[in-house]
């Protein structure tokens, strides 16, 4: 992984239509940092899911709020933060979704966080000194 990638950060309005551009920017960053196609897919999905959760849960679906997305490379790991000022939650308290059986018998909640936990090497969630919530994921680049 290219450790010379300059960190990026940008602020986004909480409209779901902006998720595509958020993902494009993170993909672009990860690609410049040397991520392979699989890692690009996974990082995009993880970041999309975190941002979608911010829109739905931190901001209760409101489309006029903002959140910040930051990405950097640190010790050969991709580090991505999504920072919001909405309602907090705890990823560890989200029940694992049912992944077996007919879809008619499954609930629909929890899949997004399940994907993030499956993809990320580590996740951190907590309050910043500013009072904002930060969801951070770490992902090691695959050896090429």
């Amino acid at each position: 992984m290219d450790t010379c990638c300059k960190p990026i950060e940008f602020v986004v309005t909480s409209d779901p239509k902006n998720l595509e551009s958020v993902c494009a920017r993170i993909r672009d960053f990860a690609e410049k940092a040397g991520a392979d196609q699989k890692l690009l897919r996974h990082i995009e999905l993880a970041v999309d899911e975190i941002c979608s959760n911010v829109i739905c849960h931190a901001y209760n679906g409101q489309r006029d709020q903002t959140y910040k997305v930051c990405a950097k490379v640190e010790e050969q790991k991709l580090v991505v933060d999504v920072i919001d000022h909405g309602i907090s939650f705890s990823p560890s308290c989200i029940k694992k979704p049912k992944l077996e059986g007919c879809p008619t018998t499954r609930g629909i909640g929890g899949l997004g966080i399940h994907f993030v936990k499956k993809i990320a090497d580590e996740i951190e969630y907590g309050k910043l000194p500013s009072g904002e919530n930060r969801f951070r994921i770490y992902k090691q680049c695959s050896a090429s």
Partner: protein
Amino acid sequence: MDVKFEEFDKGQVIYLSGRLDMAGAEEVESSMGQLRAAPLEGKVIIVSFADVHYISSSGLRTIVAAFNHIHDQNGKMVLCQMDIGVHEVFEFAGLTEVFTITETVEEAKGIDT
């Protein structure tokens, strides 16, 4: 997100096109009124992902909701033409074991109701 419906003798093919994230899922949901209004008993509803190169959990929820509706109406749903990325997300959700998934629309049309 574009949604096109095409009838065939046993049912309908739904061609999805675009990005099936939260925004795309909302657009697909609003197009699904056509499916909800149709009689589905004994029908096969095929969903083509040929032009879908990204899906998130929001998109999966829309597909699962459609499946549940079709199932409740005694119809059958078949998914087809998934690329590696889309298939992987269905795998992450444990859905490749329960959905009928084919490579092509023609194979899907050959599935018994």
